[in-house]
């Protein structure tokens, strides 16, 4: 099988035979790009190859890279809106996603980035459900030197979020980062609860960023996650975590293609500095490697 072999090596032969095409397809499939997008990509590539009379695998590889980068939208705005509002209200970033993807860790890392830019940050522990979730966030807050607003265990997450924003405003913070409990997108009650968290924050003004945290190991369910969370809370950006592992995170190709929501950040480890901006070219190169 082609598993584990790089596309570069695969394509070192200098003619384009059926086997080569199959290997291209396999590379995309094993990166979780999904059957639909893979077949479309390969089809488009085949057409281009025919039209241009491309003969070498290397040229084809470059074309594939180009197509993938194009799909991911190189021109998309991937910046985070974290500037304080003219009325003195802090920017609000709401972090959402299914269970265990890395939301709390991402909030901690993001706080670290903002602190290093000399901005004042307040964390809101709106996960009042999972055992020790607020403790975990508080530890992150201490680690990066920012305060954490928390409620009692089982408290209404919307009211904790509200308190965090209130305290953030009082403290004249630049950014309030709100961590939420993991929830599977097919749990209607929990999705409604998330909608309420957002609405309560919006009473003070628009939420600046809603970041959906997707785990790079996620397969085809990732697209459904993105779809349902977007419907519930209008996701403005994606954080693709755990890219330091063997998973390629190819599902974000379909996510960006279908929803147009840009991946903004990537998680590359469990430490405070393991957060980086998403770079389409680097992502595609890793996907094809």
């Amino acid at each position, binding site marked *: 099988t082609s598993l584990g072999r790089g596309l570069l090596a695969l394509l070192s032969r200098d003619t384009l035979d059926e086997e080569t095409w199959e290997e291209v397809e396999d590379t995309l499939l094993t990166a979780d790009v999904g059957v639909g997008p893979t077949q479309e990509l390969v089809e488009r590539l085949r057409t281009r190859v025919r039209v241009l009379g491309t003969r070498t695998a290397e040229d084809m590889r470059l074309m594939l890279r180009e197509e993938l980068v194009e799909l991911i939208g190189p021109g998309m705005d991937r910046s985070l809106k974290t500037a304080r509002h003219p009325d003195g209200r802090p920017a609000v970033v709401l972090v959402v996603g299914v269970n265990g993807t890395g939301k709390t860790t991402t909030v901690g890392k993001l706080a670290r980035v903002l602190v290093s830019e000399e901005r004042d940050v307040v964390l809101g522990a709106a996960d009042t*459900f999972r055992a*020790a979730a607020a403790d975990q966030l508080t530890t992150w807050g201490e680690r990066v030197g920012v305060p954490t607003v928390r409620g009692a265990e089982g408290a209404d997450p919307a009211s904790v979020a509200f308190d965090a924003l209130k305290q953030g405003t009082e403290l004249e913070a630049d950014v309030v980062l709100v961590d939420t409990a993991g929830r599977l*997108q097919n749990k209607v009650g929990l999705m409604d609860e998330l909608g309420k968290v957002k609405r309560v924050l919006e009473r003070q003004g628009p939420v600046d960023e809603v970041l959906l945290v997707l785990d790079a190991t996620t397969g085809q369910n990732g697209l459904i996650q993105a779809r349902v969370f977007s419907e519930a809370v209008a996701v403005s950006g994606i954080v693709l975590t755990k890219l330091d592992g063997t*998973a390629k995170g190819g599902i974000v190709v379909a996510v960006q293609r279908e929803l147009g929501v840009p991946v903004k950040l990537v998680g590359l480890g*469990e430490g405070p500095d393991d957060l980086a901006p998403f770079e389409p070219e680097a992502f595609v190169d890793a996907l094809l490697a």
Partner: protein
Amino acid sequence: MFNTLQDRLSATFKGLRGKGRLSDSDIDAAARELRVALLEADVALPVVREFVAAVRERAKSPEVQQSVNPAQRVLDIVNEELIAILGGEARRIRLAKTPPTVIMLAGLQGAGKTTLAGKLARWLRGQGHQPLLVACDLQRPNAVNQLQIVAERAGSAFFGPEPGNGVGDPVDVARRAVAYAREKQHDVVVVDTAGRLGIDAELMQQAADIRDAVKPDETLFVVDAMIGQDAVVTAQAFLDGVGFDGVVLTKLDGDARGGAALSVAKVTGRQVMFASNGEKLDDFDVFHPDRMASRILDLGDLQTLLEGAAKV
């Protein structure tokens, strides 16, 4: 939503159903749809290949060709082959001849290990055991507190002598836990470990060291049902790095098809033993291969469709 899988397969099989005999090209068409269906269910590509080849082979046999309804036979074969890989009857936990029985949990970050520890404790207590939950994740912020709370909720004893958050040696804690269990007469020890990546050699060695220190009767690989093609790579890495005896599939309360179950079982030869299907301690069940088979291929619905088609 995601109906392509169901639509495609049912369309193909409906086509097949009208015929008394399956031509090679019918079988090839069905095999192609089966391949797509499995890939969309996140079954790993190498497993898909082997699986489809096996089904195709059997579909061409006289047994199928001479059956009254070949299309139905093909469906049955798909189901049978799936269940065969997923492992028939679920295996029970092996208890040690001399207690304590040691169960070690291992898996990727965020898979659901700590939650599972609580579920196992609750379940074991229900069977008359006196479990001890051991906090060997001394790395992730507040993993120790999390396990402690989970143990309380499960009404289980807890052993967490080190504060964690980077302080303490998990191998040492594991070793002391077994001695402690013996002394306090806990007959089952459940060791929660930190999440780790398959490629993290250092942490994989740590897991192997914990294993060597406690000699588990069961090492369970905990895997998220939402995982995609990485399932096989990671499962193999854990098999090589620390070894495991059984698999637990988590987050089955979601709408992922759970092809990982098939991938991991096929590649490692280890059975899925338990299913975790919720955040609460009771959301836990022994694994049912037949249910998983229909989940992966949406055969429940497909069956209904076929029955509907037959009436028309």
